[in-house]
């Protein structure tokens, strides 16, 4: 059986109906474990105090904000190459979720930054890049909303997503060039010595896993909604044409 079978809307709907409760349940369990563990059963940082615990929301949502765009890029490429409607609709479905994660990342960052850096906002490269990423999401969502014909909208937004990825990537490095910044380095990385201690890392990994599954849940739900709305549109067009 090929993976492309799930690109058939009917098959996708059938499978996702069965999978959705499990995926959603898993997201709830992982997030509950990760957040409760993180918030109540980890020591306070000697320097940052309890404010450090916002890391369990901040880091996963920031990671997902970028990952969501990558998922949209993959969805767009699949749509342009293989013309699978589900793929285009999944990309469409992921955009508002990605934008929300971007916003959560920015807001939690501001809440964290205020006591740490003494300011809600600084034009630090990471903060700035995320703000710019948010703008890319906005443009993408606006274009989807503005085009009437669904297939044309899918074509146009896919092209935008691909070109936008290049420019978002460029912006990331342009911003680094523009300002070196005060944001700390990556909180988690495999190869460097300097990262958060294990006490924080395990609940953090759980939270990240929880956010990934949460993202999958939301995208599945939204894709199902998009598919249904397309079906309604198709049926209405048919009714108007008197075929039904």
């Amino acid at each position, binding site marked *: 059986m090929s993976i492309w079978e799930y690109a*058939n809307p009917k098959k996708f709907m059938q499978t996702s109906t069965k999978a959705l409760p499990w995926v959603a349940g898993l997201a709830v369990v992982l997030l509950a474990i990760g957040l409760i563990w993180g918030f109540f059963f980890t020591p306070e940082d000697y320097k940052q105090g309890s404010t450090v615990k916002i890391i369990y929301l901040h880091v996963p949502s920031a990671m997902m904000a970028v990952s969501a765009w990558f998922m949209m890029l993959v969805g767009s490429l699949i749509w342009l190459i293989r013309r699978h409607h589900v793929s285009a609709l999944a990309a469409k479905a992921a955009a508002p979720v990605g934008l929300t994660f971007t916003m959560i990342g920015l807001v939690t960052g501001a809440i964290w930054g205020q006591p740490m850096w003494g300011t809600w906002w600084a034009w630090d490269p990471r903060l700035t890049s995320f703000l710019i990423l948010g703008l890319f999401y906005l443009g993408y969502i606006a274009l989807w909303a503005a085009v009437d014909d669904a*297939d044309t909208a899918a074509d146009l937004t896919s092209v935008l997503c691909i070109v936008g990825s290049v420019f978002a990537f460029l912006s990331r490095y342009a911003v680094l060039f523009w300002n070196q910044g005060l944001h700390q380095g990556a909180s988690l990385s495999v190869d460097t010595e300097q990262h958060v201690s294990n006490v924080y890392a395990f609940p953090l990994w759980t939270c990240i896993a929880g956010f990934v599954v949460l993202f999958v849940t939301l995208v599945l739900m939204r894709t199902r909604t998009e598919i249904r709305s*397309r079906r309604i549109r*198709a049926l209405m067009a048919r009714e108007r044409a008197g075929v039904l």
Partner: protein
Amino acid sequence: MLHVDDLAVSRGGLTVLEGLCFGLVAADLLILRGPNGVGKTTLLRTLAGLQPALAGRVSVDQEQITYSGHADGLKATLTVAENLQFWAAVHGQTVIDPAIAAMNLTALQTRRAADLSAGQKRRLGLARLSVTGRKIWLMDEPTVSLDAASVGLFGAMLRAHLAQGGAAVVATHIDLGLPEARVLDLSQFKAKSKRQGAFDEAFA
């Protein structure tokens, strides 16, 4: 020159015409008829390669086609001659005088397109077809806003084009006064089946 095989075309995700089969050889004139909304424009745009066919095949040399739609693509601030020169240059041609003469635009050559009447604009739009030097003309309601005399001019231009081995597909409601034309009534190809756009098929 043009061959259409079991073609189906769609507009707004709905199949409008299906099972179309026809061919066109040199000096052929095909008139498309049918009520509004039957899909004449959609068919012409599909033949011109502006939109993809839903099913079936159009075999034609795309390099031999030119299209004229509801809008003439005229630039208001350019003169009649400048408008034609542009389209001629785009198609690698240089001569525009015969086309201007054929549509009786000689006296208007230096006038801006903005200052032309609707009928004069249409004549200019039709003159564009003959400066392209292409063999197959696809025309969508070419006689809109033309008076009887201009329809006569258009008929003569079309006939000259056919005499030079050209061909044309014209969607029109009026009689062009060209007895050699074949008429294709599109209402008989109106989509009956429930076959829909690819998306709907996957869905409903």
